[in-house]
C-alpha cells in the first residue's frame, strides 16, 4: 500500500495549484450502537462537496469501479460512496449463495442468488442513497451513496476523512449517515470555501443519531424477514 500513497502524493504535487486535499473529522453522538458507544467507531459517515452557487461538476471522468464483497454474511465495506455511473462489484466469498438487492429509493436492483466464488456487478446510474440487502440473510445490509460529484469521502473508524483534488472555490458540504435523520443531516449542510493550498482541514463535525428509529427492512418481495428472536408456533 505504501507505493499507492507515494503515487497519490506525487499526483498531488503535480496537480494544479488550485486543487487541494480536503480533510476533516466527524464524530457520532447520541448513538445507541454499541460499537460507537464503546469503541468510538465513527466510520460510515459519507461527506461530499457540491459546487455552491450552481457551479458545475467537471464531466468526462472515467466511470469508477468499486467493490462491495460478501464475506461471512456481511457486506464489506458496509458504506460505499461512488459517483453516478460507477460500477459496484459484489463478489461472493462465502461458501453459500448470496443475493444483493435494493428496493429502496435510489436505484432499485436485484442481482438474484448467485453461487459462492462468483461475482455480480451493478452500474449505478441514478444518484441517491441505495440501501443494499441480501434476500436470504436479513442481518446483511449495506449503504451505497451514488453521488453526482467526484469530491466525496467516507469516514474511517477514527472519524477522519479526506478527499483529494478539490479545486478552490465555494462548496456546499453534505453529510450522510445511515442512522441520522433527514433533519439532522440537513442541518449539517454548510458552505465551505476551499482556498488554494495543499491541504485544507475543515472543522470537525458531529453527527447526532438522536431521533433515529431503527425499522426492520422488508425482503425483496416486500415481506418481513423472520424475526431474529424466533417464531412462537401456535399449536
Amino acid at each position, binding site marked *: 500500500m505504501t507505493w499507492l500513497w507515494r503515487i497519490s502524493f506525487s499526483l498531488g504535487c503535480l496537480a494544479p495549484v488550485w486543487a487541494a486535499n480536503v480533510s476533516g473529522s466527524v464524530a457520532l453522538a447520541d448513538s445507541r450502537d454499541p460499537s460507537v458507544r464503546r469503541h468510538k467507531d465513527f466510520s460510515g459517515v459519507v461527506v461530499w462537496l457540491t459546487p455552491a452557487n450552481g457551479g458545475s461538476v467537471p464531466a468526462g471522468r472515467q466511470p469508477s469501479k468499486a467493490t462491495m464483497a460478501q464475506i461471512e454474511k456481511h457486506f464489506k465495506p458496509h458504506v460505499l460512496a461512488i459517483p453516478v455511473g460507477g460500477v459496484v462489484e459484489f463478489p461472493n466469498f462465502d461458501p453459500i449463495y448470496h443475493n444483493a438487492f435494493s428496493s429502496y429509493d435510489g436505484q432499485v436492483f436485484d442481482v438474484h442468488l448467485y453461487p459462492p466464488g462468483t461475482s455480480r456487478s451493478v452500474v449505478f446510474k441514478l444518484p441517491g442513497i441505495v440501501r443494499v440487502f441480501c*434476500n436470504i440473510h*436479513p442481518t446483511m445490509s449495506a449503504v451505497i451513496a451514488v453521488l453526482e460529484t467526484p469530491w466525496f469521502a467516507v469516514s474511517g473508524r477514527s472519524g477522519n476523512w479526506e478527499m483529494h483534488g478539490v479545486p478552490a472555490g465555494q462548496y456546499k458540504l453534505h453529510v450522510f449517515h445511515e442512522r441520522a435523520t433527514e433533519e439532522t443531516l440537513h442541518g449539517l449542510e454548510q458552505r465551505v470555501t476551499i482556498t488554494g493550498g495543499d491541504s485544507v482541514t475543515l472543522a470537525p463535525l458531529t453527527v447526532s443519531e438522536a431521533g433515529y428509529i431503527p425499522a426492520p427492512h422488508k425482503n425483496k418481495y416486500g*415481506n418481513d424477514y423472520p424475526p431474529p428472536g424466533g417464531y412462537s408456533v401456535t399449536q
Partner: protein
Amino acid sequence: MIAYFSRLSLLWKILLSTSVAITLLFAAMGWIVQRSAVETTSRTLEDEIDASFQAYESLWKARATLLGSVSTLLSTMSDVRAAFGTGHGPTIQDTAGELWSRLSEERAIFLVTDAHGRVMASAGPLPDDALRQNLDVVNLAARKFPGQAPGFLMRGEHLYQTVVTPVYVETALLDVLVAAYDVDEAVAKGLRSATGGSEFVFLAGGRVVASTLNARAAAQLAAKLAQHPRESVSDGAISYAARMKPLEDIEGNNIGELLILRSFEAAQARLLVLRRNIILLWLLAMGTGLALTYALARRIVEPVKALDRAAAEVARQNYDHRVKVVSQDELGRLARTFNTMCASIQQARQELIRQERISTIGRLSSSIVHDLRNPLAAVYGGAEMLVDSDLSMPQVKRLAANMYRASRRIQELLQDLLNVSRGNARCAEICKLRDVALAGCEPLKSTAEAQQVEVQIRIPEDLELPLERNRVERVFSNLVGNALEMMPEGGQVSITAAAQDGFVVVEVRDTGPGIAPEIRDSLFEPFVSAGKKNGLGLGLALSRQTVLDHGGDMWAEFEPGQGACFRLRLPCGNRTGVTIHSADAAR
C-alpha cells in the same frame, strides 16, 4: 385335640381362646383390608397407565404438530423458499438451519430433499449418516401431497418420528422438508419423567430401539408380550401392567410398537408395608389382649381355684373350710353361696348323725326285742304250763330243758349284744350245718306240731361250714317261724342243702300261700312284713345281713302257685379244712 384342650387349665384355655379370637379377627380384617388395597392399587395402576398413555399421545401429538407447524412455516417463508430454490446444500442449511434451530427444539432434525428424496441439506443433530442417503419416505409421502405426511421412520439403527412437508413453487414441487425427532433413550426418559414413572419401550425392526429399562429386560418383556398379549407381564423380578401401541409409518403400516409399562413394584411395596403394619398391630393387639386377659383371667381363675380347693376339702369331709370372699361380682356371690352351702351341709350332717344315732338305737332295740321274744316265749310258755298243768315228770323235764335252752339263748343274745357294743369280733366255728338247722328249729317244734306242720330237714350229716352258730341258728328259726306263721292250717316246711362250686346252697321251702307280690321288691328291707300277727319285720333283714356277714348271699324265689322259697349261699371256706360231701344223706 378336644381331649388335649380339655386337659388344659382354665387360664390357658382363656388365653388360647383370646389369641385365637384376636388372630381370627386380624386375619379377617387383614384379608379385607388387603383385598381392598389390592383392588384400589390395581385400579390406580390401570388409571396411571391410562394417564401415561394419554400423556404419551398428547406429547407425541404436540411434537408432531410442532414439527408440522415449523415445517409449514418454513415452507411458506419467502427467503427460505429462495434458499431452497438454489438447490445448494450449504445455502439451504445456512438459511433454514438457523431458522430451524431458532424455531424448533434443539433435538429436532431437519432435512431438505429434492422431489425424489435426495437429501440436499440437513440441520440438527443427525445421529448417523443413514439419514443423509436418499429418503424413500419422500416418494411414499408424495401420495399425500400437498398435505403433510406424519409417521414413524426406521432408518439405520434409529427410529424417527417424522413429518414430511412439500414446498411448492407455483404448482411445481420444489423441495421437500423432512422434520424428524430421533426416538432415543433421552426421548424415552423424557416420556418417563413426563408421565411420572411409566416405563417406555420402543420396538422396531424386531429389536429395542429405545427404552427406559435396560435392553435385556426390555427385550425379554417384549418377547413375552409378543407371545401372549396381556395386561400384565413380569421380567422375573418385577411385574408390570402393560399397554401396547402400534407405531405406524407414513403409509399407516405397522413398523414397530410402543410398550408402556407401569411397575407393580411401588404397589407391592405399599402392600408389603400394609401387611407389616397389620402384623405389627396384630402383635400389639395379641400382647395387650393376652396381658389384659391374663390379668382378668387370674381374677376369675384364682377364686375358682380357691373354690376347687374348698370343694376338695369338703370331699375330704372337712366342712369347716371356708372360701375367702374377695369381690362382689358373680364369683363373690358363688363363694358366699359355697360357704353357705358348706354351713348347710355341716348342719344337715350333724342332724343326720343325730338321727342316725336315734335310728341305730331304735334298730338295735328292735333287733334285741325280736330276738329275745322267741326264747322268752319259750320260757313264758314253759313256766305257764308248769304252773297251770299237772304234768308228768318227763314232761316237766322236757319243759325245764326247753326253758333252760331258751334262757341260755337269752344269755347268749345279751352276750352278743355286749360283744357288738364292745366291738368284739364275732368268730366263726366249724359247725355241722344239719345240727345248726335242727337247733334253730327246736324251739318251734311244739308250735309246728300244734299246727300240724311237718318240718323236714334234709341236710347231709357231714356238711360242715365255718359259721357263727347262734346267728345262723336264728336265721333258720326265723325262716321256719315265718313259714309256720303263714301256714296255720298245716303244711310242710323242707330244708335242703347241697354243695356247689365251693359254696353250700341251702333251700328253705314251704307249702304256704307264697310271698305277697306287694312286698317282693322290699322283702329284705327292715320293718317289712305281710300277713303276720306280730313281729317287727326285722327277721329277714337281720337274716340276710347274717348271711352277707358270712360272705354269702340270700334271696327269695317266686314261683306261681308254689309256697315261699328262700335260698342261702354260704361259702365252704376250704382253708378251714371243711370237707364237703355229696348230699346223699337224709334227715
